[in-house]
Structure formats: C-alpha cells, structure tokens
C-alpha cells in the first residue's frame, strides 16, 4: 500500500498558539476557501509549474525541471519574493513529506513537545494523510502522550470527520461569520457545513476550541455577535471561544486596507458574549 504524502507549506518546531502546550505545526498547502482576510494567501493554491517565480528569486534557489519547480533550500534567504510573484497564490517552496518523515522529526523532538497540530491552508483537504499520520502517532509507543490536533475551517463533510476522529484529540474550528451571505462574502463558501462540523465535533467531544475572527464593521455587528452567542449557547456555554483580532499582516487584495481590530473592539465583543452567558472566552494577549 502506498503511504500517503502531504504537500507541506511550512513546518514550525515550536508554537504556543496552535493548541495546548508546545506543538509542532505542519501547515499543509492548499485551501478550499478563498478568504479575503487570509494572512497566508500563499498557502491556498498548488504550483502549476508556470515558472513566474523564478525571476523573482535573486539567489537562484528556484529552477524549473521537467515542468516542475525545484526548490534549493540551502540557497533560500527567506525573502518570500517568490510568493509575491506567484499568480495563483501557491508556494514554490513546498515540500512533499511522508508520514515517516514527520514521525522522524517528532521522535527527534519528542522531549520538547505536547503534541502536533495540522494547520494550513486547510489541513482536512489532505485528510487521508492526516488520518494516516495521526494513526501512526497513536500506534507508536515512543510518541505516546502527544496530542493530535487540527486547525480547520470546518468545510469537511461528516464522512471526512468520521475518518479522522478515531485518531484526532481535538479540532480548533474557525467560524468566519454567522450570516451565510457574510460568510460567502468573506470566504467564497456557504457556512452551513462549518456550523454542522462544529455541532458534530462537539457531540463527538472533539471540539477543542471555536475561533471567531472579529473584522470591524463586518463580524463585530450586533446581529453577528448575537447569532454567535446563540450558536455557542446551544452547544455549551463552557465551550472555549477564541476571539481573533483581524490584522492586515500578509493580507492581499481589498481587505488589506480594511480597519483592524483593536483591543477595545475585541473587549466589546467579548463583553457582549459574556453577557449572553458564554463563560470561556479567550482574547489575544498581544494587540
């Protein structure tokens, strides 16, 4: 049987913002949303070998061989000019990793880790790999105790979650907006599947955290916040709800000039949610 591989945009060996404790984070390439507020737009597309990024690379780290980009990490200075040059929001610096590759890194760094988080892009687009990796972690005695978590936009259907959940300890799920039209405007997709994923994951005891992006003038409106409060109350008022502040860092397109969330905006939304009875609201440490 062929072991599935993943297209990985980036690997972070230390993260304290992607789940409990210190986590190794894999950002998988490719996303089924097209969020206007995305701060990592280069993780959306898949390279088609057009070669437009090659002239942007001043150190010669990128070449085209047999119609595919070849990336030489040793020559890369990390300037990210190639990402800006890509016409399809892809990343020429991606690498293919096998389950074995990831296990090797995890074993090497086991002493420093509480777990692994798969993020993206949208990790669940590569659900087959995620399930294979998490299963391998759970079945490896040297990796026992590592928690396996997913950052997700929630677009995965129930059949997809059914394949992942036996090996997944928790999911941190983004709700981009409660109003379906607003959600479509922000992400290009309807939110019915997102909300259904939240309910499904909650019932399965795997909803580690809901995340809500506060975009001033859009998702901080009373109607949005009230709908969010109602949705969470219907699940569990003790559910952890993280309010993320919209920032323009990395954002391309019109949203790059939208106003950002400041502390006052976030605190106003948090207060409104608290008044509605939600009792586990997390806000950013840094503004």
């Amino acid at each position, binding site marked *: 049987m062929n072991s599935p591989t993943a297209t990985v945009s980036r690997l972070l060996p230390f993260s304290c913002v992607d789940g409990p404790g*210190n986590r190794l984070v894999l950002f998988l390439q490719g996303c089924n949303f097209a969020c206007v507020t995305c701060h990592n737009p280069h993780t959306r597309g898949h390279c088609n070998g057009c070669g437009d990024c090659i002239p942007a690379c001043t150190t010669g780290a990128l070449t085209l061989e047999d119609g595919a980009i070849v990336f030489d990490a040793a020559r890369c200075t990390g300037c990210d000019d190639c990402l800006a040059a890509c016409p399809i929001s892809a990343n020429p610096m991606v690498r293919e990793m096998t389950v074995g590759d990831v296990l090797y890194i995890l074993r090497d760094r086991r002493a420093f880790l509480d777990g692994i988080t798969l993020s993206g892009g949208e990790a669940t687009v590569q659900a087959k790999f995620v399930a294979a990796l998490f299963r391998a972690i759970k079945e490896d005695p040297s990796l026992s105790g590592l928690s396996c978590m997913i950052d997700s936009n929630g677009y995965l259907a129930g059949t997809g979650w059914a394949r992942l959940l036996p090996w997944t300890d928790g999911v941190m799920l983004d709700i981009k907006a409660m109003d379906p039209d607003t959600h479509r405007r922000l992400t290009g997709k309807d939110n019915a599947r997102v909300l259904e994923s939240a309910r499904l994951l909650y019932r399965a005891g795997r909803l580690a955290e809901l995340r809500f992006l506060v975009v001033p003038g859009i998702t901080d409106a009373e109607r949005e916040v009230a709908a969010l409060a109602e949705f969470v109350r219907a699940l569990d008022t003790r559910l952890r709800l993280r309010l993320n502040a919209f920032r323009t860092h990395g954002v391309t397109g019109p949203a790059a000039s939208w106003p950002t969330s400041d502390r006052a905006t976030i605190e106003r939304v948090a207060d409104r949610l608290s008044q509605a009875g939600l009792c586990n609201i997390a806000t950013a440490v840094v503004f």
Partner: protein
Amino acid sequence: MPETLEKLRSIVTDPGLSPAQKARFLSLEAENMLPYPKIDDAVAEALAEGVLCDLAEGHAPYKPRYVVPDYAVLLKNGSAYLELDPPETLDEAITCLMIAWHHVPSVTAMPVFIGHIDRLLLPFCEGVGDEDLRAKLRLLWRYIDRVLPDAFLHVNIGPEDNRVARAVLDVDSELKQIAPNLTLLYDPETSGEALLRRATDAIITCSKPHVANHPLHTAAFDARGYAIVSCYNALPLAGGAATLVRLNLHEAAKRATDTADFADNVLPRYMDLQFRLIEARMGHLFEHSGFFENFIVTEGWVDRDRFTAMFGIYGMAEAVNHLQDLEGRAGRYGLDAEANALGLGITRALADRVEATPVEHAWRGQAMLHAQAGISTDIDATPGVRIPYGSEPDPVTHVMALAPHHLHYPSGVSEILTIDETVKANPRALFTLAKGALASGFRDFTANVAGGDLVRVTGYMIRLSDLEKFRQDGGSRTNTTALGAEAAELTRILERKPRVIGHEFAHGYGQ
C-alpha cells in the same frame, strides 16, 4: 592635572553617581594604580590585543572573584567575630543572614551568592504560617533590592519542593524586582513537575527564575555541593571562584590560517597563555592578599581549598563562522550541522585541555571550563557558545543545537531563549520547553518572555523603565542599569528577538 587624577576628579564630581557608587569606582581606580601581577610578555600581548580578557578583576586581586559561603555554618554556629549567637527563630535567622551578606565580598563589592534560602530557612519555619512567611520574605526581598541592588546577587531554591521555595517564587513574581536574581535547582526525581511548572509560570511573569539542571551539576561537584551565583556560574559551595579569565575564540580564530592550524597551534597556544594568566592572578590572591586570614575563612563559611579557577571562553559563534569562511563553507553556527559539529569539536578540545592541565591553588588542582556570558562592551563576540542575536532559530532547534556543548562546561553555560509574548496564553508551552531542554542536557534553562518590564540582560536583570530613565537622567539606584544601557547600545541587546544581550561587569568608570 595628570590623567589618573583627572579621572578620579570626574568620578568624584559625577552627578549621576551616588556616594557609594563613587567610592566603588574610586577603589577600582586605586587598585589599578598598582602594578599588574607578574606576567610574561606573551601573556601581556594577548591581553593587550584582546585575545585574553581578565574581565577587569583589577591589578591586585585581594578577594576572590566569586565568594560562595556555606551560610548553614553561620546559622549552626553563630559567629564569634560578628558576636552572633546561633539563631533560634525565623526572624533571628533572617537577621543573621542579612548581617552576614554585608561581609561577603566579590568582584562587584556586593555578595554574588546569598544562600540556598529555602534550605537555610526551612528549619526555622515550624509554627510560622504561610502568610506570615510570605510577609517576612517580602520584607527581606525589599531589603535585598534596596540595600544590595546588584542583579548579580543570587538566591538559590530547590531541588526539594517545599513551602519556602514556593513562597519565594510567589513573592519574587509579585515584586518583580531586579535583585535578587533567582535560580531553581531542579531535579526531576525530587522537585516534581509541579514545582517546575510554578517556576516556568513565574518566568512568564518576570523572566525569573533560571532553572538549573541539578543532577548534571551535582555530578560535577562533590558531597558539599554547589551553588549557582552571579551570571550562570556553578561553583563549589563553601568556596567559589578565585578568578575568571576568558579567551575570545573569535580573536583567536582570526590568528589561524585554517581549521587545522586553529586546532593544532593557535588554540593550544592561547590556552597555555590563559593558564599562565590564571596562575599569576591566583598567585597574588593566595600568596599575597591576606584574604584567607579573614573571619569568613577562619570561621568556616568558605574553605581555602574550595576556590576554583574559571577558564572562560566566548565568541564561539564568530570563531566557527570565521573558520567556516576560511574553509570556504557557507554554513553558519547554530543553523548548519557542519558548523555546529566544528563548534562542538572546539568545545571538546577546550574541555580536554582544561582537564589535563594542573592549576596551583585551584579546587581539585584544575580549572573549570566556563562559557562566559559576555560583558557590556563586547563587540563581534557573542557570549559563550550562544547563537548570535538576531540569527537564532526557533527555541527547540536552538536548544537542540547547543545542548551537546553543555556537558563540557561544568562551571556554567547559558543560553537565553526569547519567547514570544503569546506564551502568556499558553504557559504549558514554556513548561514543556524547559522540561525538554533539561532532559536534553541543558545545564541551565533561561528564558525571557517578551512584553515585560523586567528583562534579562545575559545573566542578570534590568527594568526597561529604569533603562529609559537612565537614558534621560543619567542616574539609577541599581548598579546594573548602567550596564544594561551600555550593553543595549553596543551589543544590540534589544535587537534580540524581541530582546536580550550579553555581558557581565562594570569595568570601571566611563568604560
């Protein structure tokens, strides 16, 4: 007026110095009017060229650089010289220690070690409630910071989990003072993870304590034990360090034609010069200074035979990168496997030679290798074996790159990991990082969490608000703020992601 008198005059009239700070700088100048201990021309030349550095210990060492008293002797016996009976209550014990500290010298003129405070006070705490204990510690901490305002002054707690250690962590996080500096001696067997978690939570609050790898340190010393003092220095308890001389590996590497020349000729040559400098300085202290007739020796707080010589090195990163350049290799120290292996090879060569070289007067008859944490005037030489500021990889890769060095530096080695402020929302991440670092062989785990006022500058703390005030007004109550200001400007301290630096002592007035 001759230049020396001019300098004395400018010290006396400097409106930015307190009378006590003036007295200290005057004493340094006076000592340095005496001739240097007898050294040969080659040693003098290496000093003059900055390959060797005596860290401005002065021309006539009349006290050991670091004095590490066993205060338990005082608490058990009292002191005939100080006319103190053995204490019977917690108040008496604390007062006894406060008196004792006043009489303990070091290179900074203030004590660098004031005790394993929990071990010392615990026997007197029976019948004292937790709130009462914290109130007494609060007063003691205030006394230390106001009367002995030097961030090199160090308290140790642990390895056993106990109520005094916990109260110390509570009070220290609450007050967020520069002094005392604080180290938890951590032993997974006896401390328990709960105490480590308490310590890493305290780090998030105020970048203190350091966490020392107790099993590793214990193995390097004897039954009488050790203490962590000043700037990550692990030294024999009831002794200390007579001197600390350091070798600038970058400067040494510049004098080599290639890696082989460095390993075969240059490094051994400068190490030999460094041993000769150490022996000259030790000779003055042990044979001429009269220090060992002092009551702290005769009453057994310290033992003449328990003073080591610290064989310091720094600038490993630049040395390795220079040698890589000579070999035409692009890989940089801290980031490249080949460069890291070269660095580790240098560390092993240093350790082997230090172990094989006898040093007169030193504890166990030899020096102890030390990765020196830098001083405020260092340029183009990163502290010890650290990765240069601004080019550090993520904290885990950082620890894994440096852990193999730690085995070889028994008298101290340190990295400062700068952690993003977001860790405040996820303190377990820091706990896991600390546990991983210690399990990987780190001798000491030290972290700065961004966003706080209290910031670690190499081994000691400064307050950013003091630094700003110092820049505006030119004066500070604490001795180390000036060092922080100097370091910030010269060594890109605040550039570290988000900030940190390296250096150690006030070399003297106006330097």
